[in-house]
C-alpha cells in the first residue's frame, strides 16, 4: 500500500443517540507510522470516535474510509465474568491463531511473559493492560487503536508503556490511534493531537495544540504548560518488582 493513502479517514462524521449528538463533525486521518492522540474531557466522545473508526458504531452522518483490514483494538475495559475460566494464553488467541512460542514472544515485548498460565481475573490493572496490548500487537496490525492504555498503571509503568507504544509504532510501522484523558501526559512522540469536546476543538502537533486558545479554555493554563513536557531521559530503568536494573 502506498504511504500517502491514509489507513483510515473520517470525513465530518457524527453519531446521534436519543436526539443528542455524541460527536459531530469529526474529521481525521491516520497514516502509517503515525501516532495520533485523542484527548478531551470525560464524555467528549473519544471512545465513540474510536468506535466509528472500528466500525462498531455506524455514524449517522459523514463517512468512514477504512483502507486496511489488519486492525487491532485495545478497548478501555473488559469485564471477564468469573464463570469463564480464561488464562492469559487463552485470551491471547481469542481473535487469532498463534502457537505458544509466538504468544510468549509477544508477551515478552510487554514484559508479562511470566503470566502465560495465570487466570485473567487475578491480574492487576497494569498487568491486564500489558496483556491486552500484547494481544493486540500479536496480530501485527496496520492500524492499532488503544483506548486509555495506561489506566490502572502506576506512574513508572505509564512511562514504560508509552515508550513501548512508541517502539511498537517504530517496529511494526503501523498507524496508532491513542486515546487519553491524561492531558498532562501526551507523548512527545505523538505526531498529531486532536482535542475533542463533542467536536474537534483544535488539532495539530502537541506544541500547536498547547498554544491554542480553545485548548487552554478547555483544560486551563496549567495543562497547557505541561503538555508534551514528557521529554526527560531516565538514567536508569526498573525491573518488574521496582528494583533498579543494573
Amino acid at each position, binding site marked *: 500500500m502506498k504511504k500517502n493513502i491514509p489507513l483510515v479517514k473520517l470525513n465530518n462524521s457524527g453519531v446521534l443517540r436519543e436526539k443528542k449528538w455524541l460527536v459531530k463533525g469529526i474529521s481525521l486521518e491516520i497514516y502509517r507510522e503515525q501516532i495520533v492522540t485523542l484527548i478531551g474531557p470525560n464524555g467528549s466522545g473519544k471512545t465513540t470516535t474510536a468506535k466509528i473508526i472500528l466500525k462498531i458504531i455506524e455514524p449517522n452522518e459523514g463517512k468512514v474510509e477504512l483502507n486496511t483490514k489488519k486492525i487491532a483494538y485495545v*478497548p478501555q475495559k473488559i469485564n471477564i465474568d468469573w464463570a469463564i475460566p480464561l488464562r492469559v494464553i487463552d485470551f491471547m488467541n481469542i481473535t487469532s491463531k498463534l502457537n505458544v512460542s509466538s504468544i510468549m514472544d509477544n508477551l515478552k515485548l510487554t514484559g508479562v511473559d511470566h503470566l502465560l498460565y495465570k487466570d485473567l481475573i487475578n491480574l492487576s490493572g497494569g498487568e491486564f493492560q500489558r496483556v491486552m496490548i500484547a494481544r493486540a500487537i500479536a496480530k501485527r496490525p496496520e492500524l492499532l487503536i488503544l483506548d486509555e492504555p495506561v489506566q490502572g498503571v502506576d506512574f513508572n509503568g505509564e512511562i514504560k508503556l508509552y515508550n513501548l507504544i512508541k517502539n511498537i509504532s517504530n517496529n511494526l510501522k503501523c498507524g496508532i490511534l491513542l486515546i487519553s484523558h491524561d492531558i498532562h501526559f501526551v507523548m512527545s512522540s505523538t505526531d498529531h493531537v486532536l482535542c475533542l469536546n463533542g467536536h474537534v476543538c483544535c488539532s495539530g502537533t502537541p506544541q500547536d495544540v498547547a498554544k491554542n486558545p480553545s485548548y487552554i479554555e478547555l483544560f486551563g493554563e496549567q495543562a497547557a504548560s505541561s503538555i508534551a513536557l514528557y521529554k526527560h531521559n531516565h538514567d536508569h530503568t526498573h525491573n518488574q518488582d521496582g528494583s533498579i536494573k543494573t
Partner: protein
Amino acid sequence: MRALIAGIGMAIVAGPLGCFVIWRRLAYFGDTLAHSGLLGVTLGFVLNIDLSFSVFVISGIIALLLLVLQKKTKLAGDSLLGLLAHSSLAIGLVIIAILTTIRFDLMGLLLGDILSVSMNDILIIWIGGGILLLVLFFIWKSLFAATISYDLAKAEKMSPEISNYIFTILLAGIIAISIKMIGVLLITGLLLIPPAMSRNFSNSPTKMVIFSIIGGTFSVILGLYCSLYLNTPSGPSIIVAAMMLFILSLFFKKGLNIVN
C-alpha cells in the same frame, strides 16, 4: 436402554451449549425458550407435525421476537423475558385445556418421560444434536470472542452479531431435542448445572466444556437409573443427580484450595 442412549446424546450436546449459557449469563433466556416449548408442543399436536420440529420453530420465533422487542421497548431484559416466558406457557396451557379430544400427558411434558422415547426420538437427538454441535464448532471462535467482548470481536472482524443470532437458534435446537426427555420446566437445569459443576475444576474454556459433557453424561446415567428403579419422573431425577455432582464438586474445589 433407549432412554439411556437418548439421554447421553442430550448431555453431550447440552455441555458445550450450557457453558455458553453460563458464560453469557443467559440462564433466564434459556428458561424463556424452554417455557415457550410447551406452546410448541401443543401447536405440534394441533397441526399434527413432528413435536421436536414445532418446538424448534416456536422457540426460535420467541427468541427472535425477544431480540426485536429488546430494541423496541425500554422494559428491562429480565421483565421482557418473564413476559414472554409466562405468556407463551399460559397460551400453551390454555390450548391444552381446549383440546379435550386429544389425550395429553401434561406431567410428561413438564417433567419429561423416558417411556415415551422412541427410536425416532433417538435419531432426532443424535442427528439433530450432531448438527447443533457441528454448527457450534464452526462459530465457536467468533462466539467466544463475542462472549469476552462484543466490541473487540466486532472491531477485529469476527462478525459477533451473526454468531449471536446463530447461538440463539442453537439454544432453541437443544430445547427441541431434549423436551421429551427432561421436560419443559427442567431443561435449563441440564444446561446450567453440569457447566456450573465443571467450572469448579476447570482453568480453561476447553476443559470446562469437556468436564460439562462428562458431568452431564453421569447425571443422565445416574438419574435414569434412579428413575427406573424408584419409578420417579426422568427429568427431575437427572437434575437431582446433576445437583449432587455439583455439591460434590464444591468439596473437591475446597480440597483443591487446601492443597494449593
